[in-house]
């Protein structure tokens, strides 16, 4: 179902780990307006929900719980896109602050081992998408570069929609039902990132 741009309602979840403005700017560049909100009604009634993030997992989870956004996010039935820490919070557990997360994806978020020579932590910069499964990330982006900044990663799981290799392969993107997520920042990944967001909105 594709709605015209003027009626498409896009909610960006407002919480304490957001880089919401960057996501809002990326949406504007591809022709969409979004509302940044923590209002449950607006989020529930949105056509698309974006759950971004730059921050620390346990304090982000504490904030979501305190504002009852954890249950709300789990109950969403429209397409939801988690970005970076957003992807990690959609998993079952994170090593960062040893915290149980939302459990949409059955995966344990781990920290990159820091003692490996020639691999700096955080994983920062442009790295390639590999093993793209049909459905979420366009297949033609195989071996194309996207932008990453993170120290924690989601291992390969049954929901992995694409991988990236840093020290070892990890989940670049996940997809299960109406939940989509990326570890990279599509809002900072040039034209490729904008296409990925556009595809998510216009699915």
């Amino acid at each position, binding site marked *: 179902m594709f709605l015209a741009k003027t009626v498409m309602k896009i909610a960006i979840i407002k919480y304490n780990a957001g*880089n919401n*403005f*960057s996501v809002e*700017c*990326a949406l*504007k*560049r591809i022709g969409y307006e979004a509302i940044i909100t923590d209002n449950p009604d607006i989020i529930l009634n949105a056509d698309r929900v974006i759950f971004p993030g*730059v*921050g*620390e997992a346990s304090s982000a989870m504490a904030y979501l719980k305190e504002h009852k956004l954890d249950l709300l996010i789990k109950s969403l039935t429209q397409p939801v896109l988690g970005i970076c820490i957003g992807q990690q919070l959609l998993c079952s557990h994170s090593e960062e602050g040893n915290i149980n997360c939302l459990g949409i994806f059955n995966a344990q978020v781990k920290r990159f081992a*820091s003692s490996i020579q020639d691999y*700096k*932590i*955080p*994983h*920062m*910069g*442009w*790295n*390639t998408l590999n093993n793209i499964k049909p459905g979420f990330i366009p297949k033609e982006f195989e071996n194309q*570069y996207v*932008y990453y*900044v993170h120290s924690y990663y989601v291992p390969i799981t049954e929901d992995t929609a694409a991988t990236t*290799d*840093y020290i070892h392969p990890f989940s670049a993107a996940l997809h299960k039902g109406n939940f989509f997520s990326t570890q990279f*920042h599509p*809002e*900072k*990944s*040039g*034209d490729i*990132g*904008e296409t990925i967001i556009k595809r998510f909105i216009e699915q």
Partner: protein
Amino acid sequence: MLAKRIIPCLDVKDGTTVKGVNFVNFKNAGDPVELGKKYSQDGADELVFLDITASHEGRKTFVNLVTRIAKNISIPFTVGGGINDVSDVDKLLNAGADKISINSAALRNPNLIDNIAKNFGNQVCVTAIDARYDNGEWICYINGGRIPTERKLIEWAHEAQERGAGEILFTSMDHDGVKTGFACEALALLNEKLSIPIIASGGAGDYSHFYDVFTAGKADAALAASIFHFNEIPIDNLKVYLNERNINVRI
């Protein structure tokens, strides 16, 4: 594989790009947003905007400019110049910057790094170091390279990392503007001692200098200004050159 990054640096005064910029058929080089867009299209991996305005009015102009950059450019960018406390950082991040760069302020008050990392995350905090090789030692300088300090490059860079810097941007004052190549020896030593990414700056004059900085210098990223502004080395050509020599770059 993680790509080596190429980063053009733009100096901004009162909202306008300074340093002569010389592109044929490119009229808007004075507008940092237009110039940033052009670099992004040419394949720049990130951008750095340094505010060299001193006045209060100029600072406000810069914050507005940061928002225009965020709205119009789809790759990450760092802003620096005149950042003295956490509230300056807060303003610039809210305006849409991805990272901030601090230099003299961090040397004067090292706690600033801890405070930025604690409030906004390590990845936000680029610590820039200007250093010169004096009597067998790399000495850190403040105030745009005018005043020497007691600090040495490696030990200060290491302290910055421990305090929470996400990246080190090292400019060799001996190499800056000379165009004879980056300070590869010092960069390799820095790389050996640190576990965070290192951005090399100062000395780019030729394609081969970038090859050297990523191999001998082991840098994660290379920053330059005039050779890009004067189109002596177009970024797209540079990336083809590096790719042909097995340096992993985003093309």
